[in-house]
């Protein structure tokens, strides 16, 4: 048990996830990057399901047993995917200019620098950030020791119990992220709280690959696809969550962005496989963190938009807005409503100040605070074209959910004004929003080019 088995554990996770993702992806431009990026993220979650299953049937975890099961599942998944991939025509090689090739290389090099820095930090520094030691790695540390999942309860319950029952700051938080660390610790052979963090920088690498591949599947050329991947991986707040490992937010952000990309492909191709990949990513969200339920729910209006006529959709949107307003008014003036631990009501914290500082003055998001609204405004003609409409509905719902979190929940008082929540909540959505704006601009560019072609033909 050493660095070799630690590397093997992560390669196995990648292979398992790649086998799963390959079930849903057609061979073509970006397919290998997609399978790799999605593969690592989905494989990490799948590996935790293997550990959960072993624990549920009472078998103590060991690296080799879990690895053998994962390897068998990987072989089965690849065997199933192989025929479809073998029969599909290979991707056509891209033909692009030398300057574009140089830029692509430069951007990949910059992505590697970001991932490299995060990897150095994560592997050298023992577990550092606050919540990681308060409520995430606590479970990992105990479960690794027991080689199974043992219960965590709140302190008032814990004080009256005996036996192998534990407590921490948030005993009800999902076990997936702690199980990422357990898996690495099983491979390492002991609970070294630096080595167990290997997954976080790899999630950053997976984000780059998955976004690049996902955009290539949407007919992006290599340069804009890698540029978008670079934009996401270069965001300081994203890098921090990869380097100072231990929180669930980066994994939520990556998987949510992957769900949006798969959804965009579903919108274009209307294939069951893309729909299944979207749902698979979406279902991982609540496994990673409780607010994942909210982000899962934001996909529903987008999916509805796939099948409803625009007229019906307008009515549904108006109805949804009325219901949301009704819920806020009811919670404010009749009876408080608590959703996933947060009370719904208008907040009096200085949310605007916090948002302005964090998006326009501090270094968290580079220029996104300025550029995202500007980019959406500039490409507004493409917002509601048929290929964009469902994705726009999804993006609008996610932004609305974020606005509700910031302005109408107790999360505002607890963490927005003091900066403890504002960026972490935004992190869940920002990579997906970057992807959305890229798709919007791609569509807008296509519209302008098509118009230019038409004009040229008319002139001829």
């Amino acid at each position, binding site marked *: 048990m050493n660095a070799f088995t630690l590397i093997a554990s992560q390669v196995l996770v990648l292979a398992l996830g790649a086998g799963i993702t390959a079930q849903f992806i057609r061979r073509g431009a970006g397919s290998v990057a997609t399978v790799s990026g999605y593969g690592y993220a989905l494989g990490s979650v799948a590996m935790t399901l293997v550990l959960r299953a072993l624990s549920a049937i009472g078998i103590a975890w060991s690296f080799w047993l879990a690895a053998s099961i994962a390897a068998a599942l990987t072989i089965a998944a690849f065997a199933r995917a192989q025929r479809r991939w073998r029969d599909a025509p290979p991707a056509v090689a891209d033909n692009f200019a030398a*300057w574009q090739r140089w830029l692509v290389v430069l951007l990949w090099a910059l992505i590697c620098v*970001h991932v490299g*820095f995060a990897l*150095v*930090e994560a592997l*050298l*520094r*023992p577990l*550092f*950030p*606050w*919540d990681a*030691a*308060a409520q995430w*790695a*606590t479970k990992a*540390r*105990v479960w*690794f*020791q*027991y080689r199974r999942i043992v219960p965590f309860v709140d302190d008032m319950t*814990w*004080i009256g119990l005996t036996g192998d*029952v*534990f*407590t*921490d*700051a948030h005993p009800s938080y999902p076990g997936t992220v702690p199980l990422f660390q357990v898996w690495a610790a099983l491979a390492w052979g002991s609970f070294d709280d630096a080595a167990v963090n290997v997954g976080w920088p790899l999630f950053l690498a997976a984000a780059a690959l998955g976004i690049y591949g996902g955009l290539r599947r949407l007919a992006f050329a290599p340069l804009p696809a890698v540029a978008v991947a670079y934009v996401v991986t*270069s965001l*300081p*707040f994203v*890098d*921090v*969550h990869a380097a*100072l490992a231990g*929180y669930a937010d980066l994994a939520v952000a990556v998987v949510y962005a992957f769900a949006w990309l798969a959804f965009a492909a579903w919108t274009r191709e209307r294939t069951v496989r893309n729909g299944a990949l979207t749902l698979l990513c979406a279902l991982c969200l609540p496994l990673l963190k409780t607010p994942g339920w909210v982000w899962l729910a934001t996909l529903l209006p987008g999916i509805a938009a796939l099948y409803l006529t625009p007229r019906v959709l307008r009515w549904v949107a108006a109805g949804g807005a009325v219901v949301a307003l009704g819920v806020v008014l009811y919670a404010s003036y009749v009876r408080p409503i608590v959703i996933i631990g947060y009370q719904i009501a208008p907040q009096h914290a200085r949310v605007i100040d916090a948002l302005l*500082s964090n998006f*326009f*003055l*501090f*270094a*968290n998001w*580079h*220029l996104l*605070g*300025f*550029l995202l609204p*500007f980019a959406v405004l500039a490409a507004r*003609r493409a917002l509601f074209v048929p290929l964009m409409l469902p994705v726009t509905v999804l993006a609008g719902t996610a932004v609305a959910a974020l606005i509700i979190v910031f302005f109408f929940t107790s999360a505002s008082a607890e963490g927005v004004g003091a*900066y403890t929540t*504002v*960026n*972490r909540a935004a992190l869940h959505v920002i990579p997906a929003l970057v992807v959305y704006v890229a798709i919007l601009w791609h569509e807008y*560019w296509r*519209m*302008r080019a098509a*118009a*230019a072609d038409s*004009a*040229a033909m008319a002139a001829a």
Partner: protein
Amino acid sequence: MTPAMVADSVDVAPKPSTRSAIVWRALGLIAIAAALVALVALALAGARWRASGSTLEWTGDRFNVAGGQASSRDGALVIERSDARGAFIAALPTARFDAVDYAAIEIDVSRLPERMPIAVFWRSRLTGDTTFSHPADIDTGRGVRAQLDRDPNWKGPINGIGVIVAGGAARGVSIDAVRAVGASPSAMALDALRSWFRLETWNNQSINVVFLGGQYQAFPFTLFVALVTLLALVGWFAWQRRSAWPVVAGGALVIVFASWIALDLRWLANLGRVEAQTVTTLAGKSWRDKRLAAQDGPLFAFIEKVRERVTERPGRVFFSSDDAWIRVRGGYHLLPFNTLSIAYHRNLFETSRYRPGDWICFYGRRGVVYDPGKQLLSWDGGPPLKAELIVASDGGTLYRVLPP
């Protein structure tokens, strides 16, 4: 789409010569926008265009102690006690410069308690023996700053400056350096550049927000680059309004990309230096040495002793400290023992909830009283609990609950 837009869009792929021209024009526009934004910022910040002084800096140990007591350590002046009126006063009578050339005095201080007031004072040849003071109430990240350019008494040839640390409990506060910040455009620009690229290491807030000095700076780098970008984009759209769509969009992308790269290189420069520190302090160390070298190393060392004793007779472990971060870290280091350490408050359960064999561990916690003769432990004035003291070292104690 209007006919004009369609006509604009005909030329979809710019030729290489055009492409090169787009890039150079866009970059030139960024340079012009950067110069304009910088000039406006300097004007708004009160730069004195005819001033010539560059920033002056004095280490703390060059100051004489005029009130209280202090010692020199590594170039800094470390306060040992305040004077009878509760103030510590340090003066540098040899400081000579013209007030018109300098806009502010910055004091780099370490270990300064929150809300402890600091002020600067000075004498001017124009006002004879009269001493003037001004509060240093702007946080700079490394200390505090007194903005003096609008103080009516900040005038003429300055012959002596000083620092007052008020509030009484100044023991341990270190005055590392004092700077007179130049008011000339070049000094102010250099000052801003230094501030933008100052190293920001990991801290307990890093996981929640990446400031890179933005919380202290009057004009953060992100805002500067954003304004330059927006100005350059507006200029580009106005300049190229009659050009084809790919030219307009291509130039805009060049502007955005260049700005993004500028911000990213600043971030990578900071991250790279942080990683260099990480490698220097942690690489090649054993598992144990890494933890001892970490921010909570002393706590880890204490918990090691606790773990030895708890391992001999395992039981539930209760951990408490006055400091929330210590509670979180202490509870974590004690795992996988069955540990309770409440992150949100320092209170423990009432004594009736403890069982013989439980362990109670305190680290940096006030209000704990132990009577070794009677083996009675109590905290915060509550009823006592029968317990034996097992470990007492490094600011922490470990007790084992005994049968009543």
